[in-house]
């Protein structure tokens, strides 16, 4: 009983931290992308614009939740909640720090360390697709439907690449448990060195999964108004927006965990190193957005199926052969 309570409290704390982190991720993105564009970002609301996310949240909260006449009344409010839930739930299995020994009690840092956490991760991110497709379809508008279909096809295709990149890491470490993967990297070497192609594939797939530039055609303003979240307003739109940023944070955390060793570091390992590595990836996301033009939808799909999929399969094959040869 006490365990359940403790886990519940931990989950609530983690969700609180994630949502605050997501809010300040928006601040981070706006300030950093402004520096890439030789301008200052928001700096009026609070010192250095730090209260800007609060102002945005309050504004979105008070906006009217418009439901289109042709919308499916049951699914329409549900879709953003599904997207946000999937984005938040994936963070449950990420090991935040080494297992502490507090007075004889072993306290693992992180919500849950299931033996099949990698499988859980891939499953939960597949759940997020429902948010996209239901959001697009239940809006009852053609732009939303098209945007939703494109987003779904893109996310599903790149999930394959994500899976292949992760399988490479799993073959090397021999386990599906994220906690064990991080500990192996702490003792041996970070997997980015052993799996450089897998890392690059994972990065590209992560950018495509989160619908970020240059793969952000499903929500491109100039193409599809706003894609699958055209008809959403107020807090429901805020939930889609939050889901996108939490997704970004989650894939950064997974990349840091699988390839850069999570919380491990030669000097002073701990959760702060995970944060630093995540910030590196988040900076990379913003840098990509500031630099690259948007890819056309057919170019995007062709890249996935003609280039990345064979590379991913080749990566898995070579990794398996190498692991079997070394023994």
């Amino acid at each position: 009983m006490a365990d359940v309570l403790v886990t519940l409290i931990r989950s609530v704390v983690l969700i609180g931290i994630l949502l605050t982190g997501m809010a300040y991720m928006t601040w981070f993105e706006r300030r950093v992308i402004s520096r890439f564009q030789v301008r200052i970002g928001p700096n009026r609301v609070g010192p250095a614009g730090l209260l800007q996310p609060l102002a945005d949240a309050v504004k979105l909260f008070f906006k009217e939740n418009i439901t289109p006449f042709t919308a499916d009344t049951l699914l329409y409010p549900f879709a953003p909640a599904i997207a946000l839930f999937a984005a938040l739930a994936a963070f449950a299995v990420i090991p935040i720090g080494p297992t502490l020994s507090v007075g004889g009690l072993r306290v693992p840092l992180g919500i849950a360390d299931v033996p099949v956490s990698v499988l859980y991760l891939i499953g939960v991110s597949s759940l997020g697709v429902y948010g996209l497709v239901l959001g697009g379809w239940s809006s009852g508008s053609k732009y939303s439907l098209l945007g939703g279909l494109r987003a779904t096809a893109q996310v599903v295709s790149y999930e394959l690449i994500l899976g292949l990149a992760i399988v490479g890491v799993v073959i090397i470490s021999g386990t599906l448990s994220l906690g064990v993967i991080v500990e192996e990297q702490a003792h041996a070497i970070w997997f980015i060195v052993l799996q450089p192609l897998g890392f690059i594939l994972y990065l590209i797939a992560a950018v495509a999964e989160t619908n970020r530039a240059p793969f952000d055609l499903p929500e491109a303003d100039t193409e599809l108004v706003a894609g699958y979240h055209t008809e959403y307003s107020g807090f429901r739109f805020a939930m889609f927006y939050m889901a996108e940023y939490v997704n970004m944070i989650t894939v950064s955390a997974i990349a840091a965990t699988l390839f850069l060793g999570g919380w491990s570091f030669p000097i002073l390992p701990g959760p702060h190193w995970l944060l630093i590595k995540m910030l590196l990836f988040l900076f990379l996301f913003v840098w990509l957005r500031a630099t690259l033009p948007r890819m056309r939808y057919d170019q995007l799909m062709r890249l996935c199926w003609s280039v990345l999929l064979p590379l991913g399969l080749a990566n898995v094959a070579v990794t398996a052969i190498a692991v079997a040869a070394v023994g």
Partner: protein
Amino acid sequence: MFEGLRALARGMWTTLKHVGRPPVTLNYPDVKRPLPARFRGRHRLYRHEDGLERCIGCELCAAACPSQAILVIPAENDPEHPVSPGERYAKVYEINMIRCIFCGYCEEACPVDAIKLGPEYELSDFARPDFVYTKEMLLEPEKYAPRRQYHPDVDKPRVIDVPPEDDLGTVYRTHHPIGANTGQAEH
């Protein structure tokens, strides 16, 4: 494929270089852009040294204005108490700032240097009638023309003492509507 990757890397490096440059943003309203010397902002009517108004009510500015924003109704000068040197003065002089395009033609047309355009450009206001600037507002803008843009961190509160009997009026007058009778010297 490698040319593609090289191009990608060069693009990323280009944007990264920008981070090192100082931003070009001006923190308005704390910092305002320095204006050129001949900047055309809000108009102002001038007086001679002895206190007489320069404007002689010739209506050349009203004729020159491309947007017909100026309304001048002249009147004859009372010889004992002249308002301007000359036979006429402008009894009513109004500029509709919404119609004004700040071209400066009125300043160029004026034969006596009565109207000039100054450097004020922060002219926002809330209601259309308030944009019709009367002669009093144009003659003594510091006293009569309130600045509606108020930034508490930059501006000090302004005390405007308008004498109570001065009714600047709230009537919105369309200037030079088609076919209207405008500007006749009173006798």
